[in-house]
């Protein structure tokens, strides 16, 4: 009897599962690679505005790119919104995404439009975030040190073992950091610097956001990470402060692409327009995200790092985004730093 009841239960549940609806027309499936809150706010607002039943799946940028490749014969997503620009460019290169030329392009900042140009119209910039240092004020005070202001400061002896950055093999943030230094100083000097910095690094984390979180909790004093992540920790009440390096720094261009073979192409285009519009861009603040918006008409969030005070380099995305250059720089990084070797 007991078995009977259990069997009935299983059968009932099985039927409910199998009955769950599959993808239907007239909807929109978004692959979202920004933070959960922002995805949610965007989806809700879009739905309110258009009535389109939008559903989003949130994953990491690398994961979404891998997903696009895996699904390319029969794509299930319509639009890919958010995440650092390089994978979007790679997807464009592999024709996993399609070209779209909306009228709203002319309202964008030049860097956002440049992303569109580079990819042949397959992806567009939706926000920008600069790399910098995030340090824990309490740890710094306890140790009695002045926080770093420049890349060069990081080599000071008092920061030995107090700096955390991601591993460039696994994290786009770290790769962007290396490419930034190479563009600032030339390759040889950049690697000389990285080698010296290696002595002060306590851990190359697997994931890009990890150093920022470690700094927030005081597990490390300084993190090399995106400044807008520091802004979020700060707003969450952690004792952190962001610093833009005085020599100048690189940045990422958060992007958006329409997936090739999208089943809801028309809706995807409507979302594309919405996401670039002044109103759409304004939602970053509500989404607890503090990157700089790409629409010139949208003011940045009051919590955002002030871009006017950050010295940005002229980052060459075409060159440093290419697989060959990436492989070469990472190989050199391996060869010169020998991470994992006992110090």
């Amino acid at each position, binding site marked *: 009897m*007991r*078995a009977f009841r*259990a069997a009935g*239960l*299983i059968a009932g*549940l*099985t039927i*409910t*599962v*199998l*009955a*769950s*609806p*599959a*993808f*239907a*027309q007239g909807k929109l*499936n978004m692959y979202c690679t920004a*933070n*959960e*809150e922002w995805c949610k706010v965007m989806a809700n607002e879009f739905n309110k505005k258009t009535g389109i039943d939008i*559903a989003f*799946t*949130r*994953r990491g940028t*690398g*994961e979404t*790119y*891998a*997903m696009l490749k*895996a*699904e390319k014969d*029969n794509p*299930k997503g319509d639009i890919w919104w958010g995440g650092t620009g390089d994978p979007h460019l790679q997807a464009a290169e592999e024709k996993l995404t399609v070209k779209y030329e909306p009228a709203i392009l002319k309202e964008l900042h030049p860097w956002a439009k440049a992303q569109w140009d580079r990819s042949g119209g397959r992806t567009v910039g939706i926000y920008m975030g600069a790399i910098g240092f995030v340090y824990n004020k309490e740890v710094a005070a306890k140790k009695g040190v002045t926080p770093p202001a420049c890349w060069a400061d990081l080599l000071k002896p008092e920061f030995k073992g107090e700096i955390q950055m991601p591993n460039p*093999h*696994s*994290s*786009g943030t*770290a*790769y962007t950091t290396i490419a930034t230094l190479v563009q600032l100083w030339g390759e040889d000097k950049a690697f000389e610097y990285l080698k010296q910095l290696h002595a002060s690094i*306590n*851990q190359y984390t*697997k994931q890009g*956001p*990890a150093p920022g*979180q470690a700094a*927030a*909790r*005081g*597990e*490390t004093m300084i993190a090399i990470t995106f400044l807008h992540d520091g802004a*979020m920790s700060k707003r*969450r*009440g952690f004792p952190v402060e962001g610093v833009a390096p005085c020599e100048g720094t690189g940045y990422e261009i958060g992007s958006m692409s329409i997936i090739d073979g999208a089943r809801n192409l028309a809706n995807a285009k409507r979302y594309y327009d919405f996401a670039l519009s002044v109103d759409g861009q304004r939602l970053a603040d509500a989404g607890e995200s503090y990157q700089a918006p790409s629409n010139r008409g949208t003011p940045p969030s009051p919590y955002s790092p002030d871009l006017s005070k950050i010295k940005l380099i002229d980052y060459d995305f075409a060159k440093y985004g290419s*697989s060959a250059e*990436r492989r070469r720089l*990472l190989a050199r990084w391996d060869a010169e730093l020998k991470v*994992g*070797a*006992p110090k």
Partner: protein
Amino acid sequence: MSRAARWWLAVGWAAMLLLPWYALEDGLFSFVWLRDPWGEDAAPLIVQVLRHGRIWLAPLLLAFAVPLLFAFVLPPEGEARRRRAAIILMLCGALGLVWLFGQGFAIGARGLSWGWAKDLYGDFEGRQFGLGYGGMIVAVALLFLLTEGWARRGALRGDAFVLGSIGIVVATTILFVFLPVGLVLVGAARVEDGWSLLAVAKRVTSSDIWSLGCFVGATCGTFWKTLLLAVVVGALSTALGTAFALLAVRMGFRWQGALRLFALLPIITPPFVVGLAIILLVGRTGALTVLMDDWFGIPPTRWIYGFPGMALAQTLSFTPIAFLIMIGVVQGISPTMEEAALTLRASPARLFRTITLPLMRPGLANAFLVGVLESISDLGNPVILAGNYDVLSVQIYFALVGAQVDGGRAAGLAIVLLGLALAVFVLQAFWLGDRSYTTVAGKGDTGTHAPLPPAVRHAVYWTALPWIGITIAVYATIAFGGFVTNVGRDHSFTLSHFVDLFSIESGAGGLAWTGGAWKSLGTTLETALIAAPLTALLGLLIAYVLSRQVFAGKGAFEFITMLSFAIPGTVIGLSYIVAFNTPPVELTGTMAILVICFIFRDMPVGIRAGVAALSQIDRSLDESSLTLRHGGFATVRRVILPLIRPAIVAALVFGLVRAMTSLSAVIFLATARHNLSTTYIVAQIETARFGTAIAYSAALIAIMAALILAIQWLVGERRLGRRALQT
């Protein structure tokens, strides 16, 4: 023709005549298709052939027509004819299956799938989608026709149930384990302009994997690091699991309930929460670290990041599984054998060493195997705690989704990982040998267990109890974190995390589930409650087949069942997307793919627990049941299952808990409409809402604890007709 054969013929015909052959956009149970049941989308097979010109499906009708001919028009008389009829049944089943999948792969949603086929039949117009209920049921019917015919020929003692079970487990394992994993692994041979075996060799023998540099001051290859961690974790978790099992069963420990709870607690926690709690406790600013600094002036360090932290977190996470496997085995040991040894003047120490310990071998071997496999496939703990200590699973993950994507390298690493799994598997099989571990025989057992030697008792106390201490500390941290504003920063009491997650408001339209967690919690519970029984069922069925039946290729099959367990979940998730995104088996975006992934990824624990339990049970018990009119199914139900209840509990608990806490596998499989708790929790951690993450985890822990109690109550205790333990 047997009743079962007739039944499957009827099922096949019904499916071909009535059910939609292809998968439906809105699902079968939306019944939208009933508006146009004979249209191109929803028509059953026979209509597809006759009206929609899908003539290539017609041979399937034949596969069901021919056996019908033999059943009714030319009924077989005499042994020779009966045998011929059995062969024809087999052939119809086998050829039907080959045809069903052959045409499915050949003709896809965009026409012919293969280049050469396009060249041959350039003007071919056919297109088709993934198999629907009609197609799936016909596939199952064909499979059973095949096994039914085979059984009639006397294979495997002519037991149709056993043969059918083997058929279904082998077929599903090939489809849901071998196929996706194989698709990933062949990537190792992929180079820019085609395929190359040399590339496989290069990728598999790369020096970052195998270097022995650490003996000369440099760094060692990832393989060795992975191996070291896996062996240490496997050994520690097995030792601790055994200590808990001995404490629970053999030492008359007073607080049984509490002991079992704490032994099981870590398994019911999402692994990354364990990692987080460890950081909060013994990280550089962790509570304990600060305490040590304040009281003893031990300066805070980051020792936890790297090997020690990972070994700690993994041992914490996997000890419960070892405990679940060992407790049944320790209970199963025959007291009479121990008494016999005592009467032979064996001292307690000698008795333990020469009788008790060897009899626990099947459990120890299987627990160790599971521990090693868990360790090498774990991604959650290494990502948080690895520091600069690289393991294969992490490298594979980032080769797939990192800053430098290289599918070939990922596949090469995965091959190395599986090689490691194979080596451990072979080693444990070798260690077990073909000795007999039967301790539950058909003679009843009147003895009582001998007391454990003092050294063992002390060892058990001194390992199990401090470990419980660590567990309590870790979980107290978690519980604490759920009720304070911001753990580590602001320790004022609050319920706001729980309110955010689980608030219910009564409004105009009745109750509104306004908390943020309800939807993901619902989906998680639903998938887990479906997946757990199926996981246990399949795992134990495979265990039964593996330990009780002899068939060609058994060893290889046993290893294949573990493939999906030994590979990091993310790789499995991605491989499922690759394998099941296109016809004939198109499952992406459904809840079914989540359930299937859970089943096939988690069943190995059921298999290992089942194999260990079954090795203790005398085969003559099943045989005597077979000669007492009970077929294979009735024997399993009335004799085997009641005797392996602890293994059932282990399989169910693991299936349930893993379905509720696994993260890596679901990253790719979960969709907007089927979002799970773990992805929700991770999103909280990523946005630094640790309190919410911890509160949700705490709620999950409570739910899982309740469900585990329910499982234990449902399955019940095993009765071995023994006397009660006296201590």
